[in-house]
């Protein structure tokens, strides 16, 4: 009888300890990323004066003699580099003939000098190496222009565009 009484008492009193509230937690998270920038460091893509001698010529500019860009962004992220050949048109004259600039693009990681360059094809990615908390990659642009014997004399000019995106 005492056992039954004790059991019933336990059932009645244990309600006091019954848990009527509960907690649950969730994490809020965001990863802040540095936006991408590309800046010209030095150089140009000026091929200078070319003497037309009535034959086809290939004008070449090595990447380390062309333009050096730096891509700035988030450390250890990868940036997609895209570019296209550029057409150069004869200035101040109506002439249907144009020159085609075929770019050659290389990267040297976070090295500002042209050492151990790697070729960068359009649409490929470049790793932004950590340099004091900033992701950096140096890009070098050279290229070639094919001049035919039929091209007119004059100044040819065009725009070469290189784009970067995460």
């Amino acid at each position, binding site marked *: 009888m005492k056992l039954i009484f004790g059991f019933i008492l336990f*059932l009645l009193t244990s*309600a006091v300890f019954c848990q009527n*509230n509960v907690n649950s937690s969730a*994490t*809020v998270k*965001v*990863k*802040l990323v540095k936006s991408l920038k590309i800046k010209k460091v030095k150089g140009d893509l000026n091929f200078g004066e070319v003497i037309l001698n009535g034959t086809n010529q290939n004008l070449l500019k090595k990447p380390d003699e062309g333009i050096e860009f730096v891509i700035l962004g988030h*450390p250890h992220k990868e940036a997609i580099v895209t570019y296209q050949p550029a057409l150069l048109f004869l200035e101040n004259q109506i002439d249907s003939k144009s020159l085609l600039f075929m770019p050659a693009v290389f990267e040297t990681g976070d090295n500002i000098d042209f050492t151990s360059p790697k070729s960068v094809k359009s649409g490929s990615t470049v790793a932004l190496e950590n340099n004091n908390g900033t992701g950096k990659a140096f890009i070098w642009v050279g290229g070639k222009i094919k001049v035919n014997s039929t091209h007119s004399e004059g100044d040819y000019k065009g725009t070469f565009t290189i784009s970067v995106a995460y």
Partner: protein
Amino acid sequence: MRKFIPLLIYLNILWMIPENVMPQSVYAFSLNNLNFGDVFIGYSAEVRHTDENAAKFVFLHTQWFRKKDFLVTLTLPRFLRRGSDRIPIKFKRRHAAWSFRDREYGRRRFNPNSPLYIRNVGFFRPVYIWLGGKITTSSGNVPGIHSGTIILTVEIL
């Protein structure tokens, strides 16, 4: 009539067991964290309650054959932190919703900064809560992961 007394006692004990012997009668779980993903420094980002990156909770009570009223309170961070760097975070009515069903249709929005009363919830009936938010970063923020904690408190009234 006397012969039914043991049966009544037995049923009464069965009734009492779940809420007395089992010390916990309300359960809450976090099903998803609130994730803003990658955000560019200087930009703002918003997650709605319908977004798959919104925080998601579920809770239920186990008091047999009873309908209960709940008081739901959210303890919300004011900032997401990374060391001493911090990003303000805001929670508005459009960011929070609850429903008895795990679906977008029929959700009821509520102000996450105030307590929420949910009445007449049957036993083992899940209640879902979704929570988004909005952050605004500034150019002075440092890159990397910033985080905070949302605490859901569910109380049976």
